[in-house]
C-alpha cells in the first residue's frame, strides 16, 4: 500500500526534521554538510528541470520521469541533515538565509512539506499515470517555492 508507506515515511521524516535545525556543527563537519547541501540542491534542481521538459513535451518518457522522481525523493530524504545550526551565511558562502535558524519550526514544516510532496510525486511517477504525475510535480514545485521565497537568497557561483 503506497499510501501507508507514504504516511509512515512522512512520520519518520517529521521526527527527523524536528531536530534538523537544532543540532550544531562546526569546522570540517560544517563545510562538509554545506557542500553536500549545495550539491544535493543543485541535483534536485537539475532533476526538476529534466522533468519540466518531459512534462511540457506532451509525451513524457516514463522511465525518465520515474528516475528523476526517485532521485528527488531520495535527495529530499537526505535533506533533513542539511540544515544543522552552524551552516549559515555567517560561516561560509551559502544561499541559506539566517532566518532558517531563527524560525526553525516554520522551516522544518516547509522542509517536511517538500519531503512529503517528493514522496507523493515519486509514487505517482512510479504508477505510470503521467497526468497524475504532472499534477503532483506541480505540487512539489509549490513546496520548493514556498521555502525558497523565504529562506534562500540569490546565490551566484
Amino acid at each position, binding site marked *: 500500500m503506497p499510501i501507508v508507506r507514504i504516511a509512515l515515511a512522512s512520520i519518520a521524516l517529521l521526527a527527523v526534521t524536528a531536530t534538523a535545525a537544532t543540532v550544531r556543527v562546526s569546522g570540517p563537519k560544517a563545510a562538509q554538510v554545506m557542500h553536500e547541501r549545495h550539491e544535493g540542491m543543485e541535483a534536485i534542481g537539475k532533476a526538476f528541470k529534466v522533468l519540466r*521538459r518531459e512534462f511540457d513535451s506532451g509525451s513524457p518518457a516514463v522511465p525518465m520521469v520515474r528516475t528523476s522522481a526517485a532521485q528527488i525523493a531520495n535527495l529530499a530524504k537526505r535533506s533533513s541533515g542539511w540544515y544543522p545550526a552552524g551552516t549559515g551565511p555567517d560561516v561560509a558562502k551559502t544561499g541559506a538565509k539566517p532566518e532558517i535558524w531563527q524560525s526553525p519550526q516554520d522551516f522544518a514544516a516547509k522542509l517536511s512539506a517538500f519531503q512529503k510532496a517528493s514522496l507523493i510525486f515519486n509514487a505517482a511517477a512510479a504508477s505510470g499515470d503521467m497526468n497524475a504525475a504532472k499534477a503532483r510535480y506541480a505540487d512539489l514545485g509549490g513546496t*520548493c517555492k514556498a521555502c525558497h521565497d523565504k529562506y534562500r537568497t540569490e546565490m*551566484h557561483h
Partner: protein
Amino acid sequence: MEQPFWDLPVRLIHWLLPALIAFSWWSVHNHHIDWHIWSGLAILTLLVFRLLWGFVGSSTARWSSFVRGPRAVTDYLRGRWIGIGHTPLGALSVIAMFVALVVQVGLGLISEDEDGLYTGPLYRLVSIDTSDNARDLHELWFNVILGLIVLHIAAIIFYRLRGKKLTKPMITGRAVLSPGAQPMRPGKWWATLICLALAIGITRWVIAGAPPL
C-alpha cells in the same frame, strides 16, 4: 512656434519602456518571476511594434531618417546638421538601446529560473545548460542596459545645460524647430493598427513556444 516632432506611438513606447524595465527589475527581485516574464513579453510587443513602425511610421520614427553613417555623425559634431528627430549621434544611442533590449528579451525567452519553476516561453528550443547560461547572461546584460540608461540621462542633462530641452518634446510631441527644418510628417492611423496587430500576433506566437506555422 512649436510644431509636430514626435508621434504618439513613439512617445508612448518611450515612456512605457522605462516603466516596464523598472517593473521587470522589481518583480524579479521580489519573487514575482511570473510578472517578470509578462513584463518582458510586453517589452517584446513594444520592440516588435517599434521595429515595424520604423518603416511605416511618422518621418521622425523611421529608421531611414536617423540611421546614418559615420560622416553624418562628424557633420553633426561640427554643427553642420539640419533636421529634426534623432540627431546622427543620438541615433547611435537609440540603436544601441534597441539592440540591447532585443538581446535582453531574447535571453529571457530561452531562460529558466534556478529551480526550474519558471521558464521563458522558448526555453524548450534549447538545452537545460543553455537555459541556465542564458539566465546568468540575462542578469549580466541588465548592466549594459543600465549603462545605456545612464548615458541617455547624462546626455539629456548635458543638452539641458547647453539650453536644449529634450524631455518636453518627448511628452508633448511638439518642439520649436531650428530654421530650415521640416516638421514631422505623421504616419497613417491604420498603419499603427496593422503594426500593433502584428506585434501582438508575433508575441502570442512566441508565448505559444514559437510553433511551426
